[in-house]
């Protein structure tokens, strides 16, 4: 080991099969650890319960995103194509985007022309939802983060092939140099490694 200052990130233990990992996770959970995670090449069914993860709040974001899209589309179209806002006494809105009075095919310029606006409202809803999903997800899981202590580990890269890992972070209140290690051994973790983070 060089003399460069390092910070302990946590213990990384490898497991042979999904099954082992699953049961290990259950036990780590029951041991009451909070700041830990299992790493696998694919999502494992039931692992959330095994780890006791809460349900994702992403859908709520997406709902808001969608609503925003709908509203923007509605406002954009009604302001520029109808006199709806003037009718409800908000004519100044139409002043903001000076609109040119356009009558096409004798269609009305009041709110009753709304059905013609549904397609765009729908599309924008989807569009905004989709982007909220993407960026919401990234925000929730804190990606992109290209630099991470785990990448420093030798055998961690197997996670994207056929390796199954449990990593208990040092930040966890229950973390102890000995206790945690033994726990991991107990649950059948192999080549347990102390992951450190260069500073």
């Amino acid at each position: 080991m060089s003399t460069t200052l390092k910070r302990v990130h946590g213990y990384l233990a490898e497991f042979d099969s999904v099954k082992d990992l699953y049961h290990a996770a259950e036990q780590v959970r029951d041991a009451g650890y909070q700041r830990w995670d299992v790493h696998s090449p694919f999502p494992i069914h039931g692992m959330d319960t095994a780890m006791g993860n809460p349900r994702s709040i992403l859908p709520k974001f997406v709902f808001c995103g969608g609503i925003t899209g709908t509203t923007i589309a509605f406002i954009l179209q009604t302001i520029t194509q109808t006199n709806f806002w003037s009718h409800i006494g908000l004519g100044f809105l139409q002043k903001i985007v000076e609109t040119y009075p356009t009558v096409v095919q004798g269609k009305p310029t009041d709110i009753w022309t709304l059905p013609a606006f549904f397609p765009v409202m729908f599309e924008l809803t989807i569009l905004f939802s989709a982007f909220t999903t993407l960026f919401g997800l990234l925000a929730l899981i804190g990606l992109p983060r290209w630099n991470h202590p785990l990448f420093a580990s030798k055998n961690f890269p197997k996670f994207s092939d056929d390796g199954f890992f449990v990593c208990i972070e040092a930040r966890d209140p229950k973390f102890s140099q000995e206790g945690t290690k033994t726990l991991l051994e107990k649950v059948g973790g192999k080549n347990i490694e102390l992951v450190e983070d260069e500073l």
Partner: protein
Amino acid sequence: MKRNWIHPEEPQNAKRYWRSVSELERRESFLKDLGREFPAGDTLTDEERENGRRDFLKIMGASVGLMGLASCRRPLTTILPYTQHVEWMVPGKALMYATTMPCGGGATPLVVTTHEGRPTHVTGNPLHPLGGGIDSFAQASVLDLYDPERSQKPLGMGKDLSWAKANELLAAVSAEAKKSAGAGLGIVIGATSSPTYLRLLGEVKAAFPQAQLFKYEAAGAEGSAAASKAVLGAGVKPFVKLGSAMRILALDCDFLSLDPVAGEPISAFTKHRAKEAKTADMNRLYVLENRYTLTGGMADHRKAIPASLIPAAAALIALELGDASAKALADTAPAALKEWIAPAVRDLVDNKGKSVVLAGSRLGAEVHALVASINNALGAYGSTIELLQEAPAPEFGGFAELQAAVSGGQIKTLVSLTPASLYYDAPDAQGFAKLVSDKKVKLVHVGMLKNITAVQSALHIPAAHYLESWGDARAADGTYSIVQPMIAPLYDGASTIEVILALLGRKKLGPAESAAPEAGAPPAEDAAYTAVRDTFAATAGGLDETKWNFTLRDGFLKGSTSAKAAATPNVAVVAEFIAKAKPAAAPTDEALEVVLAPDASVFDGRYINNAWLQEAPDPVTKLTWENAAWIGSVTFRRLGLKDGQHVKISVGGAEIEIPAIEAPGHVTNSITLPLGYGQKGVGEVGSDRGVNAYALRKQPGIFVLGGAKIEVLPAMAELAITQEQNTMVGRAVYREGTLETFNKDTHFAQKTGMDAHIPENISFYKGQVGVKSDENPDGFDYETKHQWGMVIDLSKCIGCTACVIACQSENNIPVVGKDQVRKGRIMQWIRMDRYFAVAKWGKNEVAQQSTWAEDNPTPEQLENAEMVTQPLACQQCEAAPCETVCPVNATVHTDDGLNAMAYNRCIGTRYCANNCPYTARRFNWFDYNKRNPLIDTTVAGIVTVNNLYAGPLGAKKEDESLRLQRNPNVTVRMRGVIEKCTYCVQRLESAKILQKQVQRDSKNFRVPTDTVKTACQQSCSADAIVFGDLADNKSAVVKAKASPRDYQVLKYIGTRPRTSYLARLRNPNKEMPGAKDIAVWSNNQY
């Protein structure tokens, strides 16, 4: 942080791009050519808009990139004001002048719109006793003025001569003539009614007694002249009062379009065809002809008979009227013809004094003689035909005499002033040309085109356009009409009058050496001007300046109609004519007949280089840019021909090879060949278009050639036909009924087809349609706004293409060339749809729903098909399907009910064109205004393609002169935008603004009733188009819309068009064969 941008003194040849625009606008070089009539100046601000508009693409196209640039420099554009002010000139306002277009033996009274001295548009002169609409030739004549390929320099055997040299040669001619008292001098003129011209010719005759005068028109014949001279006496001219003729029988006489008779205008005829209430009083037209003419299309009863049987038919009529001398000839007529003629003649007789028989001008003397006696028997003279006394004129020989004189060596110098081209259209033209050269005759030719005669003549003098020269003419009724110049000769051409004056040694031709005259006042020393004034003085009895000025203003001298002739027809002589006539022989499969007829686009060939006319579809065949042999369906299909397949037609030793086209309604075993095509070297518009049919003609005055052989060749030509579908396949697009149907149910048209059961509109909202009211708050405001609308009366519309061309000239519509027309991209905003309808498609015949059976009627059916024509442009739908589909709001509705089209907003998705049920929208597929479509370009030395397809590598159209014709008030469209009829919105807007100018701070802003007219409406000589303000109850259009015949095309789909049509009425005679079949087809259209 704004900045001031001080334009530095630009160094020459720096900043090419930025300076180019202004250079474009200045065009000094060209202005010099134009001379004083074009003072550099505010003309240009108009010009500039126009040019600028054409650079719109260049500038806007780059705009995205340039905007940044433009913010620090912007194109330097200059305004060049007049230095001396020009009388009457208000920059930005059009000036109207009255003038006259000399045509044939008559005159077309015109009003010419000029913008800063540029004539841009012509219309009929409503003040003139014979004024009103004009034909397509007059309408398009303004383009000839600017034709960049007009003959511009004097030529000697095809080589350029200086004007000095030309004057010299001309002087030599007159000196020679003086010496020899005119012996050896021959002058050929065309048909004319110009008193000055004739007077001067008289003076020539006086000065050079020995000189010989001849008259020659390519498509003219002396037959009628000879006959009327013999029967009515010399100097007596018949004037047909179409307005008072309730029964008309036309013998191969296309008096409504290509073969006008001296008489009242067409509107006088059509006014008796439109009825709005039950009536029996409607005129009736019988037509006998071999091919469909527009007159035939208007007929109530039409029979297709070989042209060679026309004399027999005439004789038959005469016989029916008791002229025994006609018996021999009459007996040669087939029985079927007798059955047809007998009831027709009875009808004429029943309407004695209200009936008239007309004969085609190219028919033989015997026919005209017979017709004279027939009309006499019908009591037509004095009632439907006025006899007018003409002013005495010198004697003219015909072409035969000319030929004789030349071959007899009596002619040393031949001066050709006729619009015809002797070496091209004369009978046996090559023979004549050879004769002339063999006899060492010096030919002096005056003409506007560099045609074969021009280049082969010893001296060719470029003729001036009638808009460039002083002159006069007598209208059919003898009204003295003035021809006044709008603009100094663009290319220094000389009018025929001036040439005569030069011969008399009173004028030098070519550019005036002397300094320009004061603006406004005509040059005092202009000999032509003085000559005309002299004639005027003579006619008006004294040179009264006020009278003269009024005459100039009105374009004619009030009350100058010719006196009635005291002549009484001398029918005795008719017998002699009949005796001369050889008995008719009906054509057979082996010996066909060939009929040579003038063409609707180039007439006898004189308009060959007029792109508008070339591109205007033939009213009958819808063929553009060339001619083809019209062959009736029966013969056509017997020979197994396809449209465009070449045939070799040989008659009397001569033969031509020409593409064939199927002509429904054309009689069997007869071929019609339109004349005037196949000319060489006349310019990129006219050169080598079609085939020269004159080649078949061997002796003068004969236009019907018997015993022709036809041979089918494998070669195929791609004809540019604008309409593929000849039938309506049962769709109720065009509706007609007989007077009887109409009297039974005046509203028959509104109940035709699906219109009878249109479900009511059950949508939740009405939207902006109909009249604004409490129930319909979004409707159109009829209180404070104008509401434009149009009605087209199909009973009156004869289907000539005058409106199409008027629209083209008013709205800067580009010409797209033959190739593009063939590809279906013609730009004309008005599409003149022509349908053939077969009686057999009526009730209890072929089931209506099955279109296929109707697509192919039998040849026999087609031979007797009815022909109907329907002008169709944007219908200005109130609920316009095109508008709602435009993604960028480039076409929206205005509060006066127009379907507006903002070119500068259009991005060209063409969705509107798809969604227009009338296919009234046109797309600029290429840069038709910038790229000359008539030439080919070789790209990078590899491939040769039509210039349009060469894109940026192609040649740009730089014809300054054609630009001058453009209407500065209409955007010149760029490539990639949709365009369409806008009811001449530029006229509507300026009318509204004018009203504001007048009213200023007072209240009435409604444009005075019926004062604003659209271009098509003005041009219509049949008064078929009514346009006006629907919100103005006094207006004509409101009355027209109230007519029971009023119907909307495709009303069923609920577009609520502002343009509607009045169903056509026909007035069949029950006793006629096949009377029951007439208009039956219209009964169950859908």
